[in-house]
């Protein structure tokens, strides 16, 4: 499962565009990763500012603003 650091995110939508299973929702200032995420990593790779990462990696950074739905 992929997680987002909403504090870091610029809400540009690049991750939504590459997501092959339509599992990312983008609001004005909020990103949601939906349950049917297949962990393909495309969103993690395309993000220009390293906002997304596998949850395990994020937990290590003690990020506060994880959004998982």
């Amino acid at each position, binding site marked *: 499962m992929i997680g987002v650091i909403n504090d870091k995110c610029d809400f540009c939508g690049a991750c939504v565009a590459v997501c092959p299973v*339509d599992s990312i929702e983008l*609001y004005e200032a909020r990103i949601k990763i939906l349950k049917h995420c297949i962990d393909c990593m495309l969103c993690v790779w395309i993000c*220009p500012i*390293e906002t997304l990462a596998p949850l395990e990696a994020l937990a290590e950074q003690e990020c506060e603003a994880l959004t998982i739905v």
Partner: protein
Amino acid sequence: MRSAYDCIVVGGGPGGAWAAKHAAEQGASVLLLEKDREIGVPVRCAEAVGIAGLKAVIEPQPRWISNIIKGAVLVSPHGKEVLIASESAQGYMLDRKIFDYDLVQIATMSGVEVLTKAYVYDLIKPNGAVQGVRVQHMGKKVDVRARVVIGADGVESRVGRWAGLRTNIKLKDMESCLQMTLSNIKVDPHNIYLYFGQDVAPGGYLWVFPKNENVANVGLGVSGEFAKTKSARKYLQEFIDKRFPNAAVLYTVVGGVPCAPTLKRIVADGLMLVGDAAHQVNPISGGGIVTAMLAGQIAGEVAGKSLKTNDLTEKSLGVYARQWHKREGKNHERFHKLKQAVYKLSDNDLNNTADKVLKLDPKKRTIGNIFKAALVHHPSLILDIAKAFFK
């Protein structure tokens, strides 16, 4: 807001504004929905536009223009500068905040209604054909019906996906972009600078677009293929640390630019896609303002005419797809082919190209001739270059 319109446009960028305006001019009732609270903000753009291209869609107004660009300087990996000063390289630095705002304002003068902070979360399509949108606005969920919906909802387009069109993009065709507006720097205010090379921006380029001699949009795009191992942020930070160590950062913005050919299907029953949502960006430059407005204009007109004959089927709306293909889509296919070949070139090939082009008469230093020199070992692409640049 009414409960039904002839046409709903999702997205208030240049493509959406122009689609809305042209549909309204055909007599359609039009509602434009924008998810953000204000039209024109945030600016997700490097803000440079060709003069000839802009004039083809609208008469430029002084208040949109922050700087006039005389030429483009291409910088090779070994630092050789190739100046292109032909007419096709002349441009404006736009103030997109004011520009986008004005385009929507112009559209409202044709009767277009606007709703901001309106998040479209689904389509109404009871029997396959799109018949409206489901909107979240001010804490309420509302269904608004439309005879035709135009999705101008950007690179992240989900309107298309809900209608069954595949709008997602391949990683290699997506440019992972980051830009900072830098101040307290010293730049050439008359020319835009494009830097190429594996160390600078693999599978893309880095740009320095001056607003004046002390302020510039400095950013880059890295192909998703390469962003895998090193992010756009790291590439840009390295360049800025080296070139502009004393810069102050006035604004940072992130984005994905779809540098691909236009989507195979950009219309469905009751639905049309416009702009980044349809992948109507020039795949070589990454420029998408004028192309989106052009597509918006065609889409709006076709929507208006289809409304009059009450035929909103994919077949009827397909006139838009065909006209777009003839006008720009065909050329974008060639550009995409050339882009792929150019991004396979090594730094050494790029250096040799720069050396070769610098020997040409400055009058012959056109984009077309540069591509010819760069792809001299790709004879199969000669015809594409000729058709793309020497029409």
